[in-house]
């Protein structure tokens, strides 16, 4: 049940600084752990997060094994025009998750 929760203000004034929050469900298995029989547990993490605003990249993050499960990102941008924010998480084992949110700028 791959899932993300994205919080974007539905409307904003032009030039206003807006806060964007993304919470994504992922176990972020480090690859450094072993099970109760001593077998290594394969790494399974998110490796990249990208957010675009009407096609322009506004945030990019690389993720590593030390990051907790279910990573939360909070970042800001300037509301320049109405449109769509696209969020994309990619990771090990061909993990891809896309989410979109729209914003109206007045």
């Amino acid at each position, binding site marked *: 049940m791959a*899932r993300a929760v994205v919080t974007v203000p539905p409307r904003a004034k032009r030039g206003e600084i807006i806060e964007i929050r993304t919470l994504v*469900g992922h176990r972020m298995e480090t690859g450094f752990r072993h099970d109760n029989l001593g077998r290594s547990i394969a790494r399974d993490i998110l490796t990249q997060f990208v957010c675009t605003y009407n096609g322009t990249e506004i945030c990019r993050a690389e993720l590593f094994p030390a990051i*907790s499960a*279910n990573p*939360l990102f909070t970042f800001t941008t300037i509301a320049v025009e109405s449109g769509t924010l696209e969020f994309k998480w990619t990771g090990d084992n061909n993990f891809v998750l896309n989410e979109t949110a729209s914003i109206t700028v007045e």
Partner: protein
Amino acid sequence: MIASVVLLLVAGFLPASSGAEMAPEDRRSGYEFMSAQTRAMQDDEAANPATLWLLDGEALWIRKDGRADVSCAHCHGDAATTMKGVAARYPSFDPKLERPLDLEQRINACRTDAQQAAPFAFESRELLALTTYIARQSRGLLIQINVDARLQPFLDRGRNAFERRQGQLNISCAQCHDQYWGRKLAGNPIPQAHPTGYPLYRLEWQSVGSLQRRLRNCLAGVRAAPYPFGAPELVELELYLMWRARGMKIETPAVRP
């Protein structure tokens, strides 16, 4: 070495329990022992990782399942109204089985009886999601366990388990949570053990978990053999703890360190 000797001496000389009930005004939710950052994470659903389970639970509520091919919503309708207050009165006595069931067991009983589906495994993603979703409908309501003559013996056994010394450390739940709450165990504050926010997201677990998981952790912590999930002993302890927390607000889904 010195620390463990001190712990043994302390555990050896103190009575297993004072036996006195904590006054209602002295009771504190685990929330009050947390840092401002962890509180903020619990209060904001956009930052609370348990929201992921909550949304899964909402999807499961309307998903048809089992040989009967019906969803929870088919019988129970809108959870926001029908499930409001339910979590605040569990564990609750089941007349058919003649013993109390906790919320997880109640959901599984409904799955096997009404939906004719296989029960969810304890601590499975599905069971935690559905339990979180149902308990969320009681957020802010007061815990109210109605103890009648049928439930009384189970409550008494739960209280006995809480006050009984156990494990290789030979200490009781009450010694930590009634006598030493607010002090530190290793670097962490000892809370009063009021289960107001279950199922909850524990940062240590990196996941949502049930009260039974927490109880099994505590049992392992005092070097006692934990009861298996679903054991009557755990349900009795859950019942006692919820009764002990009566009148406190449900916080589900809570976040704890």
